[in-house]
């Protein structure tokens, strides 16, 4: 997902301009010089200026050459297989949105089990690991959050006995 600076910079210009315009449209507080409109106006203008600077590479010269810190570990894979390999990164947020969509109907245990199974498999686990994990992890999390911390997790199709 590495985009050229020009793209991100111009996106920021758009975002900043939109914010400034949106702020400008807000109604002022009657009888006062400043209201809710000033701050977005200032921020939006600043953001748009930064976006311009980034798009035209100002200040780029003292972006230090990034030292490769293997925070995650190892070197990145040499040749990612397939064109859509990068889209795998979108799996975690997609699963969270999936949780929002179906948790109320299916219940926490089933939804969470699915999420765990998919995440674990995507990270390369065999079913011998991911299947027991998908059963045990939701029960464990349910026990901690629902039983001990009283978070009202949706029961759905498979309510827990406690």
């Amino acid at each position: 997902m590495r985009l050229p600076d020009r793209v991100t910079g111009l996106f920021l210009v758009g975002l900043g301009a939109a914010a400034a315009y949106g702020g400008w449209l807000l109604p002022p507080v009657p009888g006062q010089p400043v209201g809710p409109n000033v701050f977005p106006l200032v921020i939006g203008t600043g953001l748009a200026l930064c976006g311009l600077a980034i798009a035209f590479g100002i200040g780029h010269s003292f972006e230090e050459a990034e030292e490769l810190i293997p925070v995650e570990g190892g070197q990145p894979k040499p040749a990612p297989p397939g064109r859509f390999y990068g889209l795998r990164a979108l799996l975690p947020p997609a699963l969270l949105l999936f949780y929002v969509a179906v948790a109320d109907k299916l219940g926490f245990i089933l939804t969470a089990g699915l999420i765990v199974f998919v995440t674990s498999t995507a990270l390369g686990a065999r079913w011998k690991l991911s299947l027991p994990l998908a059963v045990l992890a939701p029960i464990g999390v349910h026990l901690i959050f629902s039983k001990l911390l009283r978070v009202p997790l949706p029961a759905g199709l498979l309510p827990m006995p406690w």
Partner: protein
Amino acid sequence: MLKTLIDAFALITTWEVIIAMFAASVYGLVIGSLPGLSATMATALLVPVTFYLSPIAAIATIVAASTMAIFSGDIPGALLRIPGTPASAAYADEAYAMTRKGEAELALGAGVWFSAVGGIAGTLSLMILAPPLAEIALSFSTFEYFWLAFLGLMCATLVARSSPVKAIASMFIGLLVACIGIENPGGVPRFTFGMTDLFGGIEPIPALVGVFAVAQVMRAMLTPEPPPIPKRRFGSIMAGQWKLTKKYHVQMTRGNIIGIIIGVLPGAGADMAAWVSYAMSKRFSKEPEKFGTGHVEGLVEAGASNNASIASGWVPSLLFGIPGDTIAAIAIGVLYMKGLNPGPTLFTEKASSMYAIYLMFIIANIIMIPLGIVMIRLASYVLRAPRSSIMPVIMLCCAVGSFAIGNNMFGVVTVAMFGIIGYVMEENGYPVAAMVLGIVMGTMVEQAFVTSLIKSDGSILPFFERPIAAILAAMAIGALVWPALVWVWRKLKREAPAAASAR
């Protein structure tokens, strides 16, 4: 004073606090030691749990988990050359070189010992610095608060290791996020696009969880699994540490002081402290040629530094609500929820709670030594857990934790969205820490700014009239102009040799 101290002791010697602290310590040690799971993420995922604890127990978990996680990041750094947290990245190479020389015990022992010393030094700075600063801060008006917040935001961009322009842009994005909602001077729905869920604004905690936890799971999807740790038996871990302390006491003290200073600066945290101290240690060492070959000196200084910054990061957080680093940003959220609103009056009205915080920091740093030794011995088992079993659990905690914050599903949507935002920003060199700072401080900056403008009737002049405000303004503007000056200076320096060679 003595009575407050006794009250503070009474506050922390309840079973709830003791159990919470112990559990959070173990949790912090484990999360910190797992590569890719940072101390900030450990703390962010802990927040939903703190809702259900008493105020002191809630703060105890944050203090214990963050302290432990910063140390235990050293463990995989020394054993695998993969830092467990970014704060250990500065000296992971050095520690690993020591392990290869057969000095793993010394490297890890130095990690735990000098981390504890650093943590206690940081706590002392918190105890000494905060109350007198609170006295001064009592007379601050919105003008001073505005400049202070501005200075804080500028610091975050100055110390970023990426392009400062991008850091400033990230900060503006954060401030823009903070604009969402009806909590603004006019009380009108702003940038809500007609969605009632957005009326309350974006909560900082789900945003933090998204940026630090979900984005990390996203990155894990594209990077290969770190190698398993080789089994080894450790000798005595603490042997030789006292000798090191005596030999390198100058380095240790310098590390502590640098860590404290960097911790107090808003936005710069343990990672920065470790980098600066390691570089400093090399610069001033009598034997710089030994660095990189498994020399303990840099480890001593950087280890003492990153833990010192954790405690001192609480100074601006407690005084002004300006976070010293991303962990302190989370702590501020918890403080607000628990009715301990940051501000100078906290030190007079809630003095016993403040003493309780100091005590907890000291206790956390002391119990870190035995717990850390146990953790080092167990590391080969803990680090054997495959990523594919840890990340799914993190995902569940993200979903449930963000739901628990407001008991509504919108929190989960926020986490998912900020996961994407954080991932894209980090990939493109926009530091997310600056954005987080913007989100946390946004409301406060706007309030100070707009109130000041109303008071001054739209004029800019009163922003510079009060003496402290003028000093703060000069510093803030200096911070703003500084990158430009550096840029010009570098340009001149680069052109001078070019001109010389042309002749």
